[in-house]
């Protein structure tokens, strides 16, 4: 039994309070994403991010959303609908979930997640997947908090040297 009033994340309310808005990415956002991502990870991936921007503009089965907090870039997510990859029926992949360090713990990721899931839902997709590093417990924890759990697929790899 769970008590009434237990804490369920109310993202929309949290986003409003935190002054967060979510929109489709613009070219201006990409420059900021490249800059912040390079600061956080220590490697510049301009080709990757501009490639994602180009894909968002040409691939109807992909969305690239950004969160702004008080007008400043706060985070982004990329969702893509894939069908029959690894034999799987159509599903939505959350390929990127990124929040700028100064905007963490402000419901930004939760808002982005809900927005990308809405995108999938609006396109008739009701299964959502993502892939994470096994040691990234905080990010795994975030997705679990949204209701995600281990699915029926398992990632295997080897060194081919």
């Amino acid at each position, binding site marked *: *039994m*769970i008590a*009434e009033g237990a*804490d369920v994340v109310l993202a929309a309310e949290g986003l409003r309070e935190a002054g967060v808005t979510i929109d489709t990415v613009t070219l201006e956002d990409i420059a900021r994403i490249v800059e912040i991502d390079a600061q956080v990870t220590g490697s510049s991936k301009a080709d990757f991010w501009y490639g994602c921007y180009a894909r968002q503009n040409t691939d109807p089965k992909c969305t690239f959303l950004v969160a702004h907090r008080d007008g400043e870039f706060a985070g982004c997510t990329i969702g893509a609908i894939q069908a029959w990859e690894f034999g799987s029926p159509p599903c939505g992949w959350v390929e990127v979930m990124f929040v700028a360090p100064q905007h963490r713990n402000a419901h930004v990721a939760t808002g982005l997640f809900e927005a990308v899931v809405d995108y999938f839902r609006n396109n008739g997709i009701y299964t959502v997947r993502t892939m994470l590093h096994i*040691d990234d*417990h905080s990010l795994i924890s975030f997705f*679990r*908090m949204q209701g995600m759990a281990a699915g029926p697929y398992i990632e295997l790899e080897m060194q081919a040297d």
Partner: protein
Amino acid sequence: MKLQQGTICAILAVLHMASRPNQQIPASEIAEIYGVSQHHLAKVLRTLSLAGIVESTRGPGGGCSFIGDARKITLYDIIRLFESGWFSAYPGEPHGQTDVAEELYRVVGEVDRHTAATLQSVTLQTIINNALRTARRRGHKAMVAE
């Protein structure tokens, strides 16, 4: 994965309290709901109290309450209080073993790594939220305590 009865009792007791924030819960209530002896529960609560996860108040209106952060405390945090050496049953560095033994330990280590990653990423709040989601999806309003 088989957990000791005390570990299961601890997790259930903590979840019960964490889903009722700022409430004093009589230990007898927890013991009755989950079918554990009050003596056994008292031992479990003492360990949880020493770990700073719960707090007990004596006297009329007293009971125990959750004082941790449900968004930060994971299943792993609770389990390791009661299952010492759980992840050290197999040697991590199989020096001097045969190639076959080394491969066996690698596979066992793979299982341990997945188990640890799961337990370290599931917070108490995640379990509470998911239980609520499931109850709502099934329309089991009766499962939600008033």
